[in-house]
């Protein structure tokens, strides 16, 4: 049973894909996003619910697949699987409403939706595969499928920005894939078996290859996880993708990067002080910097993307801590697990809310706002999962003597609250705009509404249903509430101040870095590199052409030879003379 579910988890979406393609082929154009399509993540979800988080019990060996596949579930994977399949399921339901095809849609649009449907399934399959995969090949396969299919989701609208965003996404994804390939290949060739769990054992400080491989894996997954400097694709991609796709991108797919770290870095086995410090620093820079940058954005989804970077930064810094002190890691595991599920679901619902904000009829505005403010509250730690998460985290860090980090994380809370204010403000503005439009959304789509609400609730209540190895959660004490409160209030003050300062003029806007901040720099560098290579090749070609020209000049030699060949006629005339000459020469040679 478990084995069957394990097998179906990544395979079922593919089955659905093949079935719907075959169906479409047989029947011609039919409605998309059918029920079968919705069931794609269900085996995963079922598995996460039913299975024991124990590799010895829940595993599946497929010796013929790839290079000998081994899939299993441990505690961490189970949590990831649960969160991921849940998010995909609800986002799928949402998409069914969000991307509903109208009857008279153009062929072009239909085709786009069809490709969205297929790519969604592919991305999902990859995402699920990488979670359950224990052997490296399966993992890499899942990761690659997810990454490349994700591109199609990003550029779904084919808008100019969308395509540009897709390019950034793809370039960085390719960079990440390349780095991962090096890391995996290096690790696989050294490990006893090509299994994910073997990789951390390789990455010992004693191993001369340890550091390069570690860096490759760290950076390779870092692209996905939005590590500072490699994060540039996130804001652009999220802001242009269709809302449900943004939700899974931000909620599930970037978590795959985190999972990668989790599985491959020597967390809990060895210390890498320099790398750990760098990672810690990078995480904090991301957590704070993304907040500042995000607060300056004009698109709600961009704000959310920066928020994701910021939140991932916090998690990154915790991973950094794990690398600095491996004894601390067991305590950090539940913290991170809770954090990522909490963030994943809440971020998902925040994204979905953007869509609701566009599509919900005006009369539903109160409900909307109720739903709109709850996840931000959770994120800043004032509510439900957020509160428990932050308390847990700080508690662990305090105990381990990482007070400075706690401070910085609290400061990151300030950034988060700034982002959330900005988000809400932008949604408010959008809603205002909507109310002034002539064409108002009239109907309410219950697929969208239902899935959003469900996600909202599940997100807020994460600690209560998530199977973690924590017996009871501590609520914050008074000091704790105070620590939670002041960043938000400070953020509020800053937000109001900013609003007051900027309401008169929009001059500040031109000082805002463009979406994706460093992307511009990268693009510039990339173009320069391309130009250099082109120049090099052009030079080579020119040299070759010169060579050809030189060879062409040899043709005159050929003409000369031609002239000589005409001489054969004269030669015929002197045959007897030549004969005699040769006779004398040969006699001379023989006689000498």
């Amino acid at each position, binding site marked *: 049973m478990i084995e069957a579910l394990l097998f179906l988890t990544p395979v079922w979406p593919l089955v659905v894909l093949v079935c719907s393609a075959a169906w479409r082929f047989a029947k011609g154009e039919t409605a998309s996003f059918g029920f079968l399509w919705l069931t794609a993540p269900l085996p995963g979800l079922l598995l996460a619910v039913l299975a024991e988080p124990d590799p010895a019990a829940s595993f599946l060996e497929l010796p013929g697949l790839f290079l000998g596949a081994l899939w299993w579930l441990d505690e961490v994977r189970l949590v990831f699987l649960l969160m991921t399949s849940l998010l995909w399921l609800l986002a799928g339901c949402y998409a069914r409403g969000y991307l509903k095809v109208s009857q008279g849609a153009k062929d072009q649009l239909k085709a786009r939706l069809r490709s969205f449907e297929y790519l969604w399934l592919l991305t999902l399959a990859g995402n699920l595969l990488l979670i359950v995969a224990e052997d490296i090949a399966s993992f890499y396969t899942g990761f690659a499928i997810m990454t490349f299919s994700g591109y199609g989701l990003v550029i779904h609208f084919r808008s100019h920005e969308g395509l540009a965003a897709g390019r950034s996404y793809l370039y960085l994804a390719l960079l990440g894939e390349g780095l991962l390939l090096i890391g995996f290949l290096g690790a696989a060739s050294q490990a006893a078996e090509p299994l994910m769990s073997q990789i951390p054992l390789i990455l010992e400080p004693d191993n001369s290859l340890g550091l390069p491989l570690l860096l490759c894996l760290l950076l390779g997954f870092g692209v996905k996880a939005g590590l500072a400097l490699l994060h540039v694709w996130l804001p652009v991609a999220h802001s242009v993708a269709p809302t449900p796709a943004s939700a899974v991108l931000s909620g599930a797919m970037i978590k795959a990067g985190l999972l990668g770290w989790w599985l491959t870095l020597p967390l809990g086995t060895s210390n890498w002080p320099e790398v750990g410090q760098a990672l810690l620093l990078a995480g904090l820079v991301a957590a704070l910097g993304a907040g500042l940058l995000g607060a300056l954005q004009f698109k709600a989804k961009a704000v959310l993307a920066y928020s994701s970077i910021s939140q991932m930064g916090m998690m990154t810094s915790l991973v950094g801590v794990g690398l600095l002190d491996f004894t601390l890691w067991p305590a950090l595991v539940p913290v991170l697990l809770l954090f990522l599920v909490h963030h994943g679901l809440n971020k998902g619902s925040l994204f979905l809310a953007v869509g609701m904000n566009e599509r919900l009829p005006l009369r539903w505005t109160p409900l909307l706002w109720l739903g709109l403010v709850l996840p931000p509250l959770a994120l800043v730690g004032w509510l439900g999962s957020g509160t428990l998460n932050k308390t847990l985290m700080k508690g662990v860090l305090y105990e381990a003597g990482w007070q400075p980090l706690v401070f910085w994380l609290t400061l990151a809370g300030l950034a988060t609250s700034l982002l959330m204010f900005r988000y809400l403000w932008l949604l408010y503005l959008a809603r205002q705009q909507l109310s002034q439009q002539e064409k108002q959304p009239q109907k309410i789509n219950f697929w969208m509404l239902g899935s959003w609400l469900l996600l909202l609730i599940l997100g807020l209540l994460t600690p209560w249903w998530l199977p973690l190895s924590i017996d009871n959660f501590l609520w914050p004490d008074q000091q704790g509430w105070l620590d939670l409160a002041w960043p938000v209030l400070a953020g509020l003050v800053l937000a109001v101040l900013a609003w007051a300062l900027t309401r008169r003029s929009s001059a500040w806007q031109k000082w805002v870095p463009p979406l994706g901040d460093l992307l511009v720099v990268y693009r510039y560098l990339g173009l320069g590199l391309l130009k250099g290579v082109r120049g090099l090749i052009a030079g080579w070609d020119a040299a070759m052409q010169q060579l050809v020209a030189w060879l062409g000049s040899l043709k005159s030699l050929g003409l000369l*030879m*031609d002239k000589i*060949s005409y001489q*054969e006629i004269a*030669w*015929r005339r002197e*045959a*007897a003379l*030549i*004969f005699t000459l*040769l*006779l004398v*020469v*040969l*006699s001379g*040679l*023989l*006689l*000498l």
Partner: protein
Amino acid sequence: MSSLLQELPQLLPWLVILPLFWALFSLALGVLYRHWIAGVFIFLLLATNLILIGQWLLLGDLYYSLGDWDVPLGIQLRLDGVALAMVTVTSLVTAACSLHASTYLDDYPRAQQYFWPLLAFTWASLNVIWLSADLFNLYVGLELLGLSAVGLVALTGQTEALGAALRYLYAALLGSLAYLLGVALIYSGYGQLDLPALSGLLESDASTRLALALMTLGLLLKTAIFPLHIWLPPAHGKALPPVSALLSALVVKASFYILVRLWLEAGLQVVVPSAAQFMGALGAGAVFWGGWMAWRQTELKMLVAYSTVAQLGYLMLIFPLMVGVSPTAAQLAWEGGWLQLIAHALAKAAMFLAAGNLVLAMRRPDIIGLHGVGRFLPFSLLGFGLAGVSIMGLPPSGGFMAKWLLLQSALASGQWWWLLVLAGGSALSAVYIFKVYQQCYIEDTEVDNFRHPSLLLDLSSITLALLALSLGIFSAWPQALLATALSGGGV
């Protein structure tokens, strides 16, 4: 079977008697029954040849004293491995050429009645040369061969052919006289003319060496070795196709055959390495000049004729590769040289026949006319294409095997410069052969304007080409023939 072969009388003289009778019959009867006569005699000759092969395999080298007079008084016929190989190739090529001519000559009714006697005389004289070991007898054989060949070239009586025949005749005459002068010196000095008997006797005095030089030059002129090749391209290029085939395949080889016998069988003590290198250099010149000129030609048959000039150059490499080198290298060169001769004979005959068919089909002599040939006349082209493979020395063909042996010999004797000649020559030959191939793929018309030659014409060329190719696969057999000849020849 073997006892039967042993009991059969020696058939050597029949190789000469039969074609002479053929010549007389066809001369006496004119055009009457010409095909029947040809068929009967070709059959008889082939049968004789076959039996001789069996006898040779069983008994080894065969000797035959004509008129029961022993050397030095009489003349002895000798059939060793090389001679047997030559006789066999002659039978095959001439038979195929006859087959070709029997149809081709329908266009030349007036030439017909004199073609067959001349062909028979050519065959007879070739066999005379292969079998003879007597220097003066070889002279008579060469004259007979030369005059019949000239006659064949001039047969159509057209201006170009006539000019070519005249030039050919004058070259042949000069060559014969030089050869005869050498014979005179040898006879005066040694009192006998038998090559095997002379082989132990020849001394390194000025008279002998000059005699050798004179004979060599005479034979080189007749073999058309660069730069004395100038008579060959017109003679071979302008003659009728079966005649060209015969001339290129066999006639020029006859004088070369004598040359090799002279140098490497009788005169090995007399010749010096520098002279051998000189011969090789002439060969190299032939390879490059012939290849170059072949490339520059616009007429198909002239191209093939120049190709003969080039290919003859390879044969000359046998001298530097056998004089003053290790026995291994000499053995390889010996086998390689003869194999090249055989392969070229088969392939070139096929090529000339095919070229003749193509020219017949195109109704024009130049290469441009080949456009569309690949589509409408695949069979006429096939013979040319297959023969080209051997001429280029590409595997699997006799030409390749021969070049391989020569290359190995060059390597084993440390004379790397001949490697370059062989390699460069192969490249050059590919250039001119593919120049022809290439034209066949161009199609400027959808209409088949060609005259379609009879299947018999195509078949005779294809058969020879296939033989040249299969020589590459079964080259171990001729190699066995040639190898024993060397050990028997006393090198």
